[in-house]
């Protein structure tokens, strides 16, 4: 699988999984779980595609992992800063740390397992 597509798929899948974990870590958000999962998936897709695109341009594991971590943190930040609309409680670290880690994993995946697409003449 080429790197951008792998980033897209991995970002989407891990995004859904990351969103669903909210049911365990914060059961009080259960009524909003569909929105959380959809948002997390969308965030994962966009971040994953960017990470995959970066991996295509820069073939370097360390750079890919650092870029993935940064993208994961960047995309998780708005959600981390957003308070729960019903309770007003914030879940800053609970969202930021796993979100960054997911970005890091996608960065690693795209660099390590993504196939280079050779230019056609």
């Amino acid at each position, binding site marked *: 699988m080429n790197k951008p597509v792998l980033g897209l798929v991995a970002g989407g899948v891990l995004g859904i999984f990351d969103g669903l*974990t909210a049911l*365990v*870590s*914060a*059961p009080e958000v259960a009524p909003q779980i569909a929105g959380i999962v959809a948002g997390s998936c969308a965030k994962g897709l966009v971040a994953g595609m960017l990470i995959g695109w970066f991996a295509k341009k820069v073939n370097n594991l360390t750079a890919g992992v650092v870029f993935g971590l940064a993208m994961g943190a960047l995309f998780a930040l708005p959600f981390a800063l957003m308070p729960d609309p019903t309770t007003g409680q914030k879940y800053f*670290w*609970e969202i930021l*740390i*796993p979100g960054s*880690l*997911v970005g*890091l*994993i996608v960065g*690693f*995946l795209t660099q*390590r*397992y993504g196939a280079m697409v050779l230019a056609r003449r």
Partner: protein
Amino acid sequence: MMSLSDAALTRLRDVVDRPDAGDRYAVHELLGRGGMGAVYRATDQLLQRDVALKVLPPEHPEDIARRLEREARVLAALEHPGIVAIHDAGRLADGRPFYVMRLVRGRRLDEQVRDETPGERLRRFLAVCDAVSFAHSKGVIHRDLKPANVMVGEFGEVLVLDWGVAKRAAEVAGDTSHVLSAETGDTGDGVAVGTPGFMAPEQLIAAAAVDVRADVFALGALLRELMTGGKVAAPLRAIIAKATAPTASDRYPSVDALAADVRAWLDGASVSAYAEPVWEKALRFYRRNSALILLLLAYVVVRLFILWWRGV
């Protein structure tokens, strides 16, 4: 009556046999003597470079002369980085056929790999497979692959030598001559083609039945030789066993198939010759993907830590 020592006799024989290669080649020391002629270091006076000159002894049967000429033609047809290049061929003034090839400076494969890791040995083995597979693609079967016939050059290149008993696949079908053993120097009918230990059983029975799987057998034996001196992993043992199966139909159908299994083992992938137990499969999966598995575990640990921190 005074008797000559063996060394003196050998020296005398060398002097008598030393070819006069005319103005073009200045012949130097003897590099080796096999079942089909001798190889000398020579200098190409025209191009000012050292070469290897293979020539028959002064007294030789005509069929051996034809065989040397055929070997030259086989080599000429095999232009490959892993096969020694031929530069010239012809007959000397005294009628002896000869050919001139690249002078390989290096070591025998089995000597070279002594201090190498199993991975390096296998990569060299794959280079041999690559050259032999190329020859097969040109319809040529080597029939005498063994450590003595593989050299590692000064730039690390692996070269398959001594195509003296090689045959084109089309010729093998009608071959009834048997041939010679490079080890013994024997020639003629009734002597099996190849070298004991590296020769497929069908080479002993009937030359007509020989196909590329005879080289697969020899390569399996070569691989076993290269891997001796250390613990050989079960999948590699299975590869060797399949390549050296007594029945040709039980072996890999081609050198490429054998090489693919060796390459798969090197890459940590599954090997077709080896029925892997589930726990070994899991362990291999972990080894290939340990970093990813550890990252996913780290994610789970972080999630669990957050649960504990929040007191859920």
